[in-house]
């Protein structure tokens, strides 16, 4: 009798295992992870891209507010140029980023998303190409202005500005790479 019970129990447990196998087999045939889930991953990437944009805009606004207060002894032309330059940079960054709204990603078709990412990437690359020589020119002018104002030896000033520019360059390069890498990842994911 006890033996019979053990056999029945064993059969019951085997039934559970076979039901579990059925579940596993059924799930193996399913794709489960869908396009929307993929979009959600992309959304987090676009969110990173836009965050970089907002950081740039915030930095530019701080520069517009802070620069005239701290360097009010520099020439008016230089101060105005700096303000205009940073304001234009902030507006350009906003224009580049405004077309990529992470919320829209969930509703737009993949081709549109890919095209938008390609446009963003191209604009971002162009803005960097334009900005780089302008920033270099600004650094030289800034150096000249400070030498005029303080009478500091130019070697010292050139070294200080070069050091500051180098740090700024590496931060900008890191942000640039992050945006471009994220754009590439989204485009690649859609193309695949």
């Amino acid at each position, binding site marked *: 009798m006890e033996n019979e019970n053990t056999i029945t129990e064993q059969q*019951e*447990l085997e039934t559970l295992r076979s039901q*579990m196998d*059925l579940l596993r087999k*059924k*799930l193996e045939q*399913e794709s*489960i992870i*869908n396009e929307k889930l993929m979009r959600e991953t992309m959304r987090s990437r676009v969110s990173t891209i836009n965050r970089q944009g907002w950081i740039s805009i915030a930095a530019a606004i701080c520069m517009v507010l802070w620069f005239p207060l701290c360097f009010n002894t520099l020439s008016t032309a230089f101060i105005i140029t700096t303000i205009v330059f940073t304001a234009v940079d902030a507006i350009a960054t906003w224009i580049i980023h405004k077309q990529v709204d992470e919320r829209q990603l969930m509703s737009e078709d993949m081709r549109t998303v890919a095209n938008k990412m390609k446009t963003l990437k191209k604009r971002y690359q162009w803005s960097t190409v334009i900005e780089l020589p302008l920033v270099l020119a600004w650094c030289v002018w800034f150096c000249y202005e400070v030498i005029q104002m303080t009478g500091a030896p130019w070697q010292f000033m050139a070294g200080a500005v070069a050091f500051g520019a180098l740090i700024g360059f590496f931060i900008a390069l890191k942000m640039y790479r992050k945006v471009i890498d994220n754009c590439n990842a989204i485009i690649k994911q859609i193309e695949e």
Partner: protein
Amino acid sequence: MDKEKEFEQIVKKHKSTVYTVCYMFSKDEDEVNDLFQEVLINLWKGFGDFRGDAAISSWIWKVALNTCISFDRKKKRQGVKIPLEMAGNLFTDDDNDSQQIRMLYQRINQLNLVDRAIVLLWLENLSYDDIAAIVGISVKNVSVKLVRIKQQLIKMSHA
């Protein structure tokens, strides 16, 4: 390999494990979706710190079970909902296989959360050592609990 790509491949490979856990801890398809997303988020968060000390499958089981056990079901209606891509619905399909799966679900679903985790791991043919490591109890405790769970399951089939 790109970290995200690597993660995607791991998730694809172990999707049925994650889904099985979510299914057994949910009361409807909506909750399965919520849990599935929550598990994926937690896996992604922990993926950076995963050093490969344990087998990847054990790690996935652990994260999935912990997420499902501790999931705040009040949160389920918040945020963007992403339905999973499934040809059928395990809660409503009427074919023979689905009925069998539902029988398993109904029995396991009557167990408490920790017992559910233990029996799922046992049904996946994991060793007692692995079960103990994943659930965080001693091997002896696993064997004692399993005896009791098996008895409970058999009783349910006679009820």
